[in-house]
Every structure is written in structure tokens, then in C-alpha cells.
């Protein structure tokens, strides 16, 4: 008797956990893949590096995971998404490459500055973009999506200006490390570097949110801005900080994406990534209406999206067609989250329980 009660509570704990839904989604996507091609789970070593579909998903999903960190915070704090992240990524990549090789150079084998300066410039530009968004949202109280709409168009265009309307190639072996594999002497790291970058970003964010009160403040401001202000929390500053973090994440993701193709392709880097990042947050079980958030859920959501994209491409769907499926998924998630639908489900459950109770009494 007590055993079954324990089992009940365990299942409830499991299904009630925030990361349960995203994990189920990820599991489903992988299951479909395994059924389609049993070799999906295989991981082999080719030329000294790990090779396999799972590694590929973890590798390609890094940028989305990094973006999802910032996006989770902006959604939690202001109930609004930062739709400029994809464009900001392109701008950061352009700035990084242009700093390294100089303005107007299409392809270079020599660098003007050490690589880390270029990376820092890229991340710094991302932070500046975040500051701009944060100022508009926090101080001027513009709706987040409209405020970020400005950079959504402008950033990509500025990126084109910075790179003189061309793809700037950095043909230096060291520049590829960040987006591909690290080589030290003859030894080559078997795991793709973006995975490490994503892990470091997630670890830093978790540390920052758990060890300081920032995470608590963000949730508090997201749930009720005015009440938090009266409690003595500087809500304007908290919102601002969240947007800056989001900009920083976009900067990191942009430099990684640029290093992957060792060039700054302002037209294509980060294209539609804002959609993926928002979808990752929604899939992670976070409410798009702000308030409580779960970073772990968002990260799992990010890899689910990447797995979904890889699956779609494996099924022969073209890159341009993939957004249709993602759009349908995002609509389904928000419909389930919608208050009207939630109330309907609650009412039905209540009716069922009351009907069941009535029967029991009759017996």
C-alpha cells in the first residue's frame, strides 16, 4: 500500500519536474531518428576526432544553447523576446573578422592583431547592442519586441557596411579553433570546441544566477515589476542587465559561428536563430509570459531544436522549408500555454473529478 503511494509520488515528482516535458520531447525526436536509421546513435573516431550524428547535434546546437541562456533571462524578466539576436550575431562576426584583417580585405592569411582581441571586440559589440536594447526596454519602457526590432534590421545592415558588403575570409589555422577543433602541436582535441564554449557559458550563467541573488531578482521583476520596485529592487537595472547578458550571449554565439566558417558572412550568419532561441525557451517549459524560469529546460530545448532541424534535413526537407514545421511547433506550444486553453483543461478535469466523486458517493 505504502509502496504504491511512494511510486505515485515518484511519478508525480517526475512529471511535475520542470525539465520533464523538454526531456520527453528530446527523447521522442531521438527515438524517431533511431527508428529511421539505427546508425544514429553510433559514435566513431575518424582522423582522431569524434564523429557521429549525436556529436553533430551537440556541436551545431551550441550557438542556440548559448543564445537560449540570454533569451531565457529576457523572457523571464520582461515577458518579451529579444528578436535582434540573430542579426547581432552577424554584426559581431563582421566586427570580429574586420578587426583581425582590416577593412575592405576580402581574404587574408595574416592577422593584424592577435585572435583574442578580435574575439573580445566581437563580444564587446554584442554587449553594446545589448545595452542599446536594454536602455530602450528598461528606461524608455518600449515594448521589448518593438525595441529589438530596430536592431533586427539595422544590425545585419551595419554588419554588411563593416565588412564592406562582402564575405571577409580569415584563412588562419588558429582562427578555426573556436568553431572546430583545437590543435596543440600534434595533439588534436577529439571533441568540437563549440561544445566546450556552450558548457562554459552555461556554467558561468548557472554560477551567476545561483550564487548571487540575480536569479531571484529576475524572477521577482518578471512576476510583478511594480511590487519588486516597492520591495527595493532596482527593476530598471535588473531588466537592463538581462538585455546586456542577452547581447553578450549573441556576441559569443556570433564569434563561434564566424569561426566555424572562418569568415564573416553577414547575410547568412545567425539567420532565423532568434526563432530557434525563442522556440528553445518555449520548449524548455518556460512561460513566454515571464516570471519563473528554468535554465536547464531551455538548454535541453535548444538541443531538441537542433535535433529536430537535423532530423528534418535528414528526411530530405530543404533548409528554407524547415521554418514551416518549427512555426507549427511554436504555435502548438503557445496554444497549450494560453490561459484560455489552460482554464478549459482545468474545468474539464474538475468536472471529471466531481463526476467521479459523485459516483463514489452513489456506490
Amino acid at each position, binding site marked *: 500500500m505504502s509502496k504504491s503511494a511512494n511510486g505515485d509520488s515518484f511519478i508525480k515528482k517526475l512529471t511535475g519536474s520542470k525539465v520533464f516535458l523538454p526531456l520527453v520531447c528530446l527523447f521522442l525526436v531521438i527515438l524517431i531518428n533511431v527508428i529511421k536509421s539505427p546508425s544514429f546513435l553510433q559514435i566513431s573516431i575518424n582522423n582522431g576526432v569524434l564523429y557521429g550524428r549525436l556529436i553533430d547535434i551537440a556541436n551545431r546546437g551550441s550557438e542556440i544553447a548559448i543564445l537560449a541562456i540570454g533569451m531565457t533571462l529576457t523572457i523571464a524578466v520582461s515577458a518579451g*523576446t529579444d528578436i535582434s539576436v540573430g542579426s547581432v550575431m552577424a554584426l559581431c562576426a563582421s566586427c570580429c573578422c574586420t578587426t583581425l584583417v582590416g577593412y575592405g580585405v576580402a581574404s587574408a592569411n595574416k592577422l593584424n592583431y592577435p585572435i583574442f582581441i578580435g574575439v573580445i571586440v566581437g563580444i564587446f559589440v554584442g554587449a553594446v547592442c545589448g545595452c542599446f536594447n536594454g536602455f530602450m526596454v528598461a528606461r*524608455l519602457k518600449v515594448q521589448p519586441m518593438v525595441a529589438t526590432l530596430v536592431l533586427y534590421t539595422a544590425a545585419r545592415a551595419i554588419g554588411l*557596411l563593416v565588412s564592406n558588403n562582402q564575405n571577409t575570409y580569415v584563412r588562419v589555422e588558429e582562427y578555426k579553433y573556436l568553431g572546430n577543433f583545437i590543435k596543440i602541436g600534434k595533439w588534436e582535441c577529439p571533441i568540437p570546441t563549440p561544445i566546450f564554449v556552450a558548457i562554459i557559458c552555461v556554467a558561468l550563467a548557472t554560477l551567476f544566477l545561483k550564487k548571487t541573488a540575480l536569479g531571484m531578482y529576475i524572477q521577482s521583476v518578471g512576476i510583478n515589476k511594480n511590487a519588486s520596485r516597492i520591495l527595493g529592487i532596482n527593476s530598471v537595472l535588473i531588466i537592463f542587465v538581462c538585455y546586456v547578458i542577452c547581447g553578450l550571449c549573441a556576441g559569443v554565439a556570433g564569434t563561434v559561428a564566424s569561426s566555424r566558417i572562418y569568415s564573416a558572412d553577414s547575410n547568412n550568419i545567425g539567420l532565423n536563430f532568434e526563432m530557434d532561441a525563442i522556440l528553445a525557451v518555449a520548449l524548455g517549459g518556460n512561460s513566454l509570459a515571464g516570471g519563473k524560469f528554468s535554465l536547464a529546460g531551455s538548454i535541453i530545448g535548444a538541443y531538441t531544436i537542433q535535433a529536430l532541424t537535423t532530423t528534418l534535413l535528414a528526411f530530405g526537407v530543404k533548409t528554407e522549408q524547415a*521554418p*514551416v514545421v518549427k512555426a507549427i511547433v*511554436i*504555435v502548438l506550444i*503557445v496554444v497549450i500555454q*494560453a490561459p*484560455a486553453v489552460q482554464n478549459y483543461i482545468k474545468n474539464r478535469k474538475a468536472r471529471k473529478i466531481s463526476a467521479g466523486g459523485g459516483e463514489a458517493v452513489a456506490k
Partner: protein
Amino acid sequence: MKKKANFNGNNLLLVITIVLFVVMYAIGCIVYGSKGFSQFQSFLNILIGNAGLICVTCGMTCVMITGGIDISVGSLVGLDCMILAYGMEKLHWSAITAVIVVLIVGIVFGVVQGFLIGILGIQPFIITMAGLFFARGMCAVITTEMVNVANETFKKWATIKINLPFGGYVNRRGIYMAPYIRITVVIALIVVALTFILLKFTKFGRSLYAVGGNETSAKLMGLNVKMTKMKAYILSSFLCSIGGILFCMNSMTGSVAQAKGLEMEAIASAVIGGTLLTGGVGNVIGSLFGVLITGTIDALVQFNGKLLSSWSSIAVSVLLCFFIILQAIFALIKERNKA
């Protein structure tokens, strides 16, 4: 006394817009006068080039008056062009069938978005963003190639010249050149006029303002807020489809990349035209001027010839940013006066 009371911050925004347009156009005439910018025809060319955008912006204005936003319009225009081109060229529809199909697609699109936003109460931005990616993806599902329109009837519609009786000039050979407009401009101006009447003099138009101004009091007044919102999105998508047809008459092609970023131009035009992002304030005349301003920026970049095309989108973003900040400052002042 009464005049003074009417002249509040919102009217000021409209005045700023009109002044900005006049100043910008005057600068253009002075700088590029020798290249023919000061001719009446180049003004009409701005209208011809932006006829589709005018329709789209009218729909956007209606949605923004309710306090919402619709960023799916650019992709929907792209999808409309694709359906028109693919339908007429590959499926051999007649021009009229294709146009009707496009209008029906627009209404269906609007009904779905309106239901999700109005009835289920989901954030408009999320839904219309999903709509944006859905419509763009559907273009690719239809075909990823570029389809050119060669339908005779459609071509005839697109190339009709309507000569104006005034404003012409005599060219170097001594022939009188009458300025002309295309049928697209006539349709766009009719849409503006109808939307103006709809917003100003009908019950539906006034309820849009009421819902945008204060949703709770609109509800208490007995207005059906949910249905009003839903209708606004249907209207937006419908006007957007008309805009898509006009856009296709200009470009005569259908491709996946078409009309990318049009939503941004439409929102910018509406905001520049004095429509408040918070809802409740706005009119289509301002939006028309907003479109003319963005059109003038494009024309100026083109007349320069040396600037990269990305400059025009940067200029539009800067203007949008300027007007957003202006609106925010007005709102902050209003709040302070209340307190």
C-alpha cells in the same frame, strides 16, 4: 481655445512627420535636382514603387491601433507573390482566379492569426512571428525557384499608364511628357481612403480605438473586445494580400526572398506616421506620409548611386528608433503630468 486643446502630443507627432517629409524632399530636390529628382514624375515613382507598402501599412495601422502588432506581413506578401506567379505560370490559372485565391489565402491567414491572438489571448508578437516563418517556409514548399509572371492579362493590368493632365514637362526633343501613374497607385489610394472612412466613421473603426485605448473600459462599455481584435487581424491580412498583388504587379516575379524585411518598413512607416505602439492613437493619413518618407529615403539612396543599399535600411531603422524614443518621452511626460 478649443484649437489649443486639440493640439496635443499626438497631433504634434503627425506635424513632425509631415514637416520631416517636406524637409527631406526639399533637400533631395536641392542635392539631386540635376539628376531629375525635382521632377513631378520622380515623386509619382515613389508612389508607384511603394503602392504595395501603402496597403500593407494601412492594415498594420489598424492592428497597431488595437495595441497589437503584425510582423507576418512581409512573408505574407512574399507568399502572395509566389502563389500568383506559380498559379498563373505553372498551374495555368487565369489572372482573376489567381487574385481571388490570394485574397482567400489572406483572409484564412488572418482568421487563424486573429483567432489565436484575439480569442485565445496569446501575445500577438509570438503568433505573427510564427506566421512570418510559416509563410516564408510555405514559399519554399511551393517552389524554391524564381518564377517570372508572363500572364498576358496580368501584364496588361500592371502596365496600364494613367496620364495626369497636369505637371508635365517638355523634354529635349520638344515632346510633351505627361506624368503618369499606374493602376497600383489608384488601388492603393482607394484603400487609404476606405480605411480612413472605416476608422473615422464606422462603429468597427471606433471600437478599434476603444480597445486600443483601454481594453478594460472597452469591455465594460459592452464592446466585444475579442471579436474586435480578431477582425483587426483579418483586416490586416486582407489588406496585406491586396498589397501583395500590387507588389507582384511591380516586381512581376515570385521568389522565396521576396519582400524580406517589408514588415519592418510597414511598422516603421506606421510609427513614423504617428501611430502609437501602445495603441489607441493613429491614422492612415500619417501612415501614408510615413510610407512616403521611407520611400524618399530609398529614392535618395538610389539617386546617389554610390551608397550601399544597406544604408537605406539603416536610415529607416534610425528614423524608427528616433520616433520610438520620441513617443516614449511623450508617454513619460504624460505619466508625470498625471502624477
